């Protein structure tokens, strides 16, 4: 029972990280209608910046804040210089163009930071577990991830639902031309939104960094999962991204945790070990396929233009 709760917490933590990544993706997609495959590269940059700044300032928190700022700047620069020209184009053009950007960023990172990857260490008090329930130990840092991500989700909710900027974002998502016609500086809005998405991706990247290494190409695999999340959740919907991300995180983790044991009832131990990881990977894509077949617009579609 305790194991199950621990796995649920793991799933929640993974799901929340996915949410951070997916939130930026769905915002950019929903508002600017831009398919950004390079979102994973921003995630990677967040991690690299955090590792570098933390090493310079000798402080994890300071390094993280600086990295957030740096990723925000890079994101906005990217939008202004390159991605802005892709608005209004075919999704295929987006895919191709941003696919090329993935290659570019991977090589750029290799050029600047070398091929070996970096590491980001945590202050000691972050590493050790706390006993959150009798007999159940959970690492402090992962609790911090859960709390931070939930706070960010709350912040996004307030931003989108309760501020003027959020209102503009929602307006831009439902009807771009009208919003522009009303005199809002659409260019600035888009750049800010993209920057926000980049910062969210960078936050996800840097939060993961201490528990995983910082390496080239780290964004590619999780990027696909983020796309799965926003498709299930509904493009442009942050609420959908939240629910879908937690769902995907839980399924993936619980699947990986308990599927081998289930399969061992029918297969050999080796067979179960081989089939189980493949099956749990397949489950998420199966879920997405089912959602798309039954509800093609996702679980919480945003009414679109």
């Amino acid at each position: 029972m305790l194991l199950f709760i621990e796995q649920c917490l793991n799933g929640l933590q993974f799901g929340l990280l996915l949410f951070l990544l997916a939130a930026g993706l769905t915002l950019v997609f929903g508002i600017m209608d831009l398919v950004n495959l390079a979102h994973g590269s921003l995630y990677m940059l967040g991690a690299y910046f955090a590792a570098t700044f933390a090493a310079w300032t000798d402080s994890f928190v300071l390094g993280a804040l600086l990295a957030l700022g740096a990723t925000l700047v890079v994101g906005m620069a990217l939008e202004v210089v390159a991605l802005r020209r892709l608005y209004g184009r075919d999704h295929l053009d987006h895919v191709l163009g941003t696919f090329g950007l993935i290659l570019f960023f991977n090589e750029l990172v290799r050029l600047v930071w070398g091929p070996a990857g970096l590491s980001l260490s945590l202050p000691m008090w972050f590493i050790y577990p706390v006993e959150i329930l009798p007999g159940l130990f959970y690492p402090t840092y992962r609790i911090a991830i859960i709390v931070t991500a939930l706070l960010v989700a709350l912040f996004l909710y307030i931003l989108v639902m309760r501020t003027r900027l959020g209102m503009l974002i929602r307006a831009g998502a439902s009807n771009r031309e009208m919003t522009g016609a009303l005199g809002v500086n659409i260019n600035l809005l888009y750049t800010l939104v993209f920057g926000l998405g980049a910062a969210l991706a960078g936050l996800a990247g840097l939060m993961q960094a201490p528990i995983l290494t910082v390496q080239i190409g780290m964004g590619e695999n999780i990027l696909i999962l983020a796309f799965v999340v926003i498709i299930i959740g509904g493009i442009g919907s942050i609420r959908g991204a939240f629910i879908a991300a937690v769902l995907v995180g839980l399924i993936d983790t619980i699947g990986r945790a308990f599927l081998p044991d289930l399969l061992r009832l029918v297969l050999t131990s080796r067979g179960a070990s081989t089939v189980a990881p493949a099956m749990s990977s397949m489950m998420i894509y199966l879920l997405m396929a089912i959602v798309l077949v039954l509800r093609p617009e996702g679980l919480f579609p945003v009414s679109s233009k």
Partner: protein
Amino acid sequence: MTAALTPRNVVIAVLMLLLAAVPVYAAVTANNFLVTLFTRVLILGMAATSLNLILGYGGMVSFGHAVYLGIGGYAVGILAFEGATSGFVQWPLAILVSALFALVVGALSLRTRGVYFIMITLAFAQLVYYFGVGLDRYGADDGLTIRTRSQFAGLLNLSDRAQFYYLCLALLVVTIYLIARLVNSRFGMVIQGARSNDRRMRAIGFPTFRYRLTAFVIAGAVCGLAGALLANHTGFISPATMHWTRSGDLIVMVVLGGMGSSFGPLIGAVALLSLEEALPVLIRVAASPLFGDAALRMAEYWQIVLGPLFLLVVLFARGGIDGLLAGARRG
């Protein structure tokens, strides 16, 4: 349709002549590797041409097309592993299984549009990819070595490099021809019409779903055959062939070469594979005068040039290379 002496037609004609001459040139210069390299170009060109039917003409952006390369390849690999090395059994099966899978995926996916279609084709591709990863008996993630090439009862010897090359070339030409005919027929008109305005086509009375599904199945089947060829060529098949980034490579070939044109995908395949070989050399040669020995290391970062190149093509050369040659801009 008269063949005018436009720059584009001249380039295509020259390209085909050069491709036909590769084994001869290789024999003369005793450089067998050229044949190996260009066989791969031909096979991937065939795969890209099949993708062009649904992507370029049909507007269906399938991000899971590489999966058929895998299905065709595994059909050959698994049968060879189990002792059935006859090409007469392997290749039809490769085509059949690919067609069936395309039927299922298409039936489920073609109800969606735009990015949803992209993602659902990706989902199915990842499903097959992970299924391949779970195939313990057939090497799983490590792949399967194919010890003997497909046997054709003495009619063809696929181990003979030149013979295999010309077989691939013949199949490629047949593919291009068939797809061109298909596109210029009523079938093709419906597909293209459905791409620009599906509702109107249906209003006129065409069951567009059926047409698009048929195109999807044909594309999958042809790509499955390309997969069988690829497995024979490399003597090896693994799930990596089906990874989503390989589907991305195919899309790049189609767009780079020119969507919606008969020879575009082949040109794209030639261009992309040439770039992969040539860019490192170009960088090394260009940087040597300035950086000396360091130029060798610099050449390893060639993807830093390739990446933005895709973006530039998207922004400024929408019709791909074929579009540049034809002088027209496609919308």
